[in-house]
């Protein structure tokens, strides 16, 4: 079942992968596996928390993900103040 921990907007196009391996280095939840000269593979997409590190460091733009601040309290504030973007932690 989709929940706060496994619903996400991660998209990956292996056709564009240049095999640099950066996605598997930066991901804190080991969503990608790379190596052996093959294109990176999505091995655990449900664990993605949309931090955006992979997309930022993917040169060919093979990875897309809507990354944002993840705190409920920040989103509540954003909703109350009608701002589009949630911000938190100062």
């Amino acid at each position, binding site marked *: *079942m*989709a*929940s*706060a*921990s*496994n*619903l*996400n*907007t991660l998209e990956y196009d292996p056709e564009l992968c240049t095999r640099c391996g*950066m996605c598997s*280095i*930066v*991901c*804190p*939840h*080991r969503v990608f596996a790379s190596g052996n000269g093959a294109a990176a593979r999505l091995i655990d997409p449900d*664990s*993605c*928390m*949309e*931090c*955006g*590190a992979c997309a*930022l*460091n993917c*040169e060919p733009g093979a990875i897309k993900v*809507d*990354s*944002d*601040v*993840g*705190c*409920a*309290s*920040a*989103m*509540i504030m954003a909703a109350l103040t009608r701002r589009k973007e*949630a*911000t*938190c*932690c*100062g």
Partner: protein
Amino acid sequence: MTARDRLDHVLARLGVRRSGWRIRPGLYRLGEPGPESPVFVSANYTLSFDALRGALQGIDSYILVLDTFGINVWCAAGKGSFGTDELVSRIEQTRLADEVSTRTVIVPQLGATGVCAREVLRRTGFKVRFGPVRAVDIPAFLEAGEATEDMRRVTFNLKDRAVLIPVEGKIASPILAGLTLGAYLADGPVAAAGVGAAGVAGFAGFPLLMPWIPTEDFSTKGFLLGGAVGLAAAGAALLSGDGSAGQRAARAVSYVLALPAITSFIALNFTGSTTFTSPTGVKREMNRYIPVMAAMAASGILVNGARHLFGRKRG
């Protein structure tokens, strides 16, 4: 002022614990670094800097502290203050290229959310190597020349969650104190104790018990935990000799309705402190459950208020 002076300055400050949360951004020397020594990048938050400094004991190195406004690496990277632009300008401002002959900076892995490695290389000539998630793994990382899978993975174990309890409690306590006082004035000691217990269940019980509460969503886990508190408070109300049977029943129903909403709301807010929830998932959970919480709290208050309609205990 040289980097050496700045280091002494910081060490002196750190001697008096917690005198300052922010480290002055810039280049620091640890031990007796030479032009070949490794350069580690950190945030200007005392705890981030201390974790790194502690892990690097006995390792001659440089620490390049970015200005993240006193925020830790991961949160600052999420907001972009621990980011490409700040790293590039700090490398230039500290004349790092003149200080060291190495052309690599080691950035904590969680900084990757804000740091685009190829952009830093293009703009400064410095290659970004992403180090392990936790500073404590740095010696092993340097030894092996690379990070293991475990060093690259973020955890959220019992200890990680337990250390958050004081923070969560501090955030929740002003509102909880108000709600507890309100419940005491409007109803009495059982209601006040119930509100307080529902709050503690949210900011302390939930972080500790989270993985073992048998539902998927944070909010429903909160409903279950708060439900237990609600049932206990309802039992106390029914057993008390306070008021007519109707009044006691109304109280009991109101606790079962309202108290879980308090616990659940605090549990939902804990999504911001975890290491694994996605904004998309949190938004969906908020849209789904905040209306339920509001309805439960409102109906609980209404039922509690309606107990006066049952009249006083006779005889």
